[in-house]
């Protein structure tokens, strides 16, 4: 019996949130989104974070999760009920003070048998909830319902209860043993406890022997319990494993339902604020994106002004985003990053339509504003971060760069960036690069598979916050002038 509401066949791995992941969350403003989704709950926050930094890369994985997200939007009650039940189990575990206090096999066995008796009641409750689940269409939920019904039959529950009764050893224990290495007692096997009378019968019938430990022989009693412990090791491990596994089930149930409750909450928030979302379509070509009315979701939480949405059509390995400052270059980069991350988390995305390929992974390399180190230290830091990305990058990854390598002069910065981008392009790595370095943008002007987006400035020189296909413009007037005067010479 497994939860499997995030993946069809596995649990969410808890990876270490390293520098790359922290950068991704911060650079894209995803931490703002996560905060709102989780409603301040730490567990939700952790789970959402983990889900977002581990993008799905298979179409069937994405579809599997999208279906459950849809169920959550339609039938949040079921998720809430399951979440509450899981929470109750975890609370009751915390309350059972004596569970696992004892480190010896006999003690562990005793407390686990008690715990198991409690858990059986909760399993029955789970069964009850899932017998009347309401609106369910996803494969994930259907499987959970089906498995619960199959495993938790009345016969099985009865059998479990009976076994637990046998395991409540009090003072009598019977086991077989052999003569092992260096003549120690070994190969202890627990044997069925006989009725009180019959034991004596067995042992008086033939030439059995017995001895008694004196009431005052403390060492003797200690030795006796040590032997009991050795006999019970395997059984104690077994029962403990079963108990832990059921507890794990409920822990995971809590985590995974928390995620969907948070997703439902986000969906409501977007609606309340008057924005839109859609379920993405998966494009099988790479690179290939057609997006309509994409907006920066993180901005939605911090601004009262209406956010200007953008469209994107892209079939290129490198996309430069250039043009006037404060024109919405970074906002656009972020909106794409957030949408792609949500898409590959199996969620809806902040756009009216979203048709995109799957990236193998997603990285950000943003200029760090707060960095007030010496110039050389800054470049060193930028290179170090890029080195970390390169260590993990695979073909078809997406790297979002924002003013990378602007910490050195334009000549050197462009030189470094050109070399890196060329290598990325040749290895089918996709890059979006916001830059004001004309030297860099110009370096690719004749290359294939390179796309340029320019922030729009209207006739009055006012920024419209729209990005449109275009060509990079030099900001150096001297050259402009030269080309103007000598037009036709070249």
């Amino acid at each position, binding site marked *: 019996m497994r939860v499997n509401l995030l993946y069809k066949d596995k649990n969410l791995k808890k990876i270490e949130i390293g520098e790359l992941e922290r950068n991704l969350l911060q650079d894209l403003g995803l931490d703002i989104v996560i905060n709102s989704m989780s409603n301040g709950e730490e567990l939700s926050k952790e789970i959402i974070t983990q889900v977002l930094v581990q993008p799905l890369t298979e179409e069937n994985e994405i579809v599997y999760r999208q279906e459950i997200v849809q169920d959550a939007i339609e039938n949040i009650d079921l998720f809430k009920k399951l979440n509450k039940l899981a929470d109750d189990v975890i609370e009751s575990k915390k309350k059972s003070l004596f569970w696992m206090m004892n480190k010896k096999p006999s003690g562990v066995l005793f407390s686990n048998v008690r715990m198991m008796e409690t858990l059986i009641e909760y399993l029955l409750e789970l069964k009850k909830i899932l017998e009347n689940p309401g609106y369910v269409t996803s494969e994930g939920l259907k499987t959970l319902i089906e498995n619960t019904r199959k495993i938790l039959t009345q016969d099985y529950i009865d*059998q*479990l209860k009976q076994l637990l009764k*046998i395991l409540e050893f009090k003072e009598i*224990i019977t086991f077989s043993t052999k003569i092992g290495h260096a003549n120690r007692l070994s190969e202890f096997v627990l044997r069925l406890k006989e009725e009180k009378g019959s034991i004596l019968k067995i042992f008086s019938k033939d030439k059995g022997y017995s001895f008694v430990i004196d009431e005052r022989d403390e060492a003797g009693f200690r030795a006796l319990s040590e032997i009991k412990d050795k006999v019970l090791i395997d059984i104690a491990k077994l029962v403990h494993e079963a108990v*832990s596994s059921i507890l794990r089930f409920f822990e995971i149930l809590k985590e995974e339902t928390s995620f969907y409750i948070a997703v439902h909450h986000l969906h409501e928030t977007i609606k309340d604020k008057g924005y839109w979302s859609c379920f993405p379509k998966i494009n099988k070509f790479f690179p290939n994106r057609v997006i309509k009315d994409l907006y920066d979701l993180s901005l939605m939480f911090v601004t009262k002004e209406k956010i200007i949405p953008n469209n994107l059509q892209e079939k290129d390995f490198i996309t430069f985003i250039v043009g006037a400052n404060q024109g919405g270059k970074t906002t656009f980069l972020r909106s794409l990053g957030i949408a792609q991350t949500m898409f590959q988390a199996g969620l809806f995305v902040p756009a009216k339509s979203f048709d995109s390929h799957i990236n193998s992974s997603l990285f950000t390399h943003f200029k760090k504003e707060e960095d007030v180190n010496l110039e050389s230290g800054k470049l060193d830091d930028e290179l170090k971060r890029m080195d970390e990305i390169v260590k993990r990058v695979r073909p078809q990854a997406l790297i979002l760069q924002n003013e990378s390598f602007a910490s050195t002069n334009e000549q050197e910065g462009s030189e470094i960036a050109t070399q890196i981008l060329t290598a990325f392009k040749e290895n089918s790595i996709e890059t979006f690069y916001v830059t004001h370095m004309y030297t860099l943008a110009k370096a690719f002007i004749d290359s294939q598979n390179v796309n340029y987006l320019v922030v729009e400035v209207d006739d009055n020189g006012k920024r419209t916050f729209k990005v449109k296909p275009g060509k990079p413009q030099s900001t150096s007037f001297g050259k402009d002038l030269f080309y103007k005067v000598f037009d036709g010479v070249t």
Partner: protein
Amino acid sequence: MTFNSLLTATGKTVKENEDTIKDLRVDLIIDGISRLSREPIGDILFDRLTKKKDILYRQKILKDIQKPEFLKILKKFSQNFEKVKNYIELSSKSSFEITLKGWHLEAALNYINSLEEFYSAVSNLKIESEGFNEFKDFLKSYIASNEFKTLKEEAIFTKNQLNEIKAIVNIKENKIYVNNFNNEKRLDNDIKKALSKLVYYEVEKLDFEIIESHILSNVEEKILELIKKLNYEPFTALSDFYKKHRDFIEKTVEQFYKEIQFFLTFLEYIEPIKKMGLSFCFPEIAEGNGEVYFKDSFDLALAKQQSEKGKRIITNDLHVNKGEKILLVTGPNQGGKTTFARMFGQLFYFATLGLMIPGVEAKLFVCDHIYTHFEKEEKVQSKKGKLEDELARAKAILDKATDKSIIVLNEIFSATALEDAYFLAEFLIKKIVNIGAIAVFVTFMHKLYRVDNSIIPLTSNVETENPAIRTFKITRRETKGRSFAIYLAEKYRLTYDCLKERLKDES
């Protein structure tokens, strides 16, 4: 053909004085090797061989051991035999009779098994060295002997008898009942089957820490006593076996076990260094002083120390032609001069132990002695007193040295007035040239190379490109300049060329 020893054919050895051992850091190396050894082998490491024949005898042994297949066999044998000795010790320490005889029987079983396993593994293996072949022949006849056969039959018979015992124990409060097993139904399988339906998650498995003392509790002893009462025959066999085979270990086998420790421990000691990418080789050994060379060699003590930190040290090459005598090492401080001098002495030391030495190839000779003269720092003395001491030590060396000696002089006369120092050093060098010994002379006096044409001038260089590495080559090098930004990009392997390689590897 009888088996004598793996260590020597003639038994001729020589020891170096304490200064040499310390100055060359040979003491650290010997200490490190000794600590890894199962048996005391320190003595062997202080006895340098003086005959080429002996050196080659050991080299051949070590070459055999170097074959991975044979090494595995020897290691296994060594482990097994250590266990035998361990069990015998446990037996002798037991006060409870059933346990005492139990450990003794286990020791015998392991002994039998280790020898048979070893013999069957080596019987079809091609072995080159005389020493090993002699032992193999010995083992063949020993295993076939009646003595061994009886030991084996009786040990196995006794163990089988004990194995067949099965008892049932019932504990009820403070009463313990013991009887022979009578097919009582087992409980664990049903529980396992039922519970397995609930185990769907990998959970942390409990691991109970049962500290198993070798001393039995009175309860276990009593239970065993009762089982013994119920099973007369097996326990009688056990007692008989103990009486008849108290000391079953053959002396030659034990000697062999002790001697292979010398080689195995040495290999174990150098293994982590090899993992760092450094090499060891069997040096070619000449009888007399002539051509000497080594390639990619290093200071063993330093390499060991650095390998523990996961670091690898820089190696050095040198070719000393016939007629060249004095290796004059000058150059900046912290440049690896002393390390180079130590390495030179160590190479001769370990080559004449018949062992492998640091390097990919080397040619050395059988030296009669290795003399060292290092600056003594510990004693605070007047300048005059210090010079006097230095001169006295120098004289002692010159008096004894021959054309087969190695002399390592480190920073001699460094506290003396420059003019005096040059004068004394010149004298010293001429004297050594006269004697015909080979010497390493580490000094700040770089002009000394003019003294004699048998001097090879060598210079240390501080590593500039990667200051993280703190051991350095005795060679000249150049540095090239380039733009800072691209230099940095190269440092992180982020230039186009670097990335092309990296992304290819990683995709």
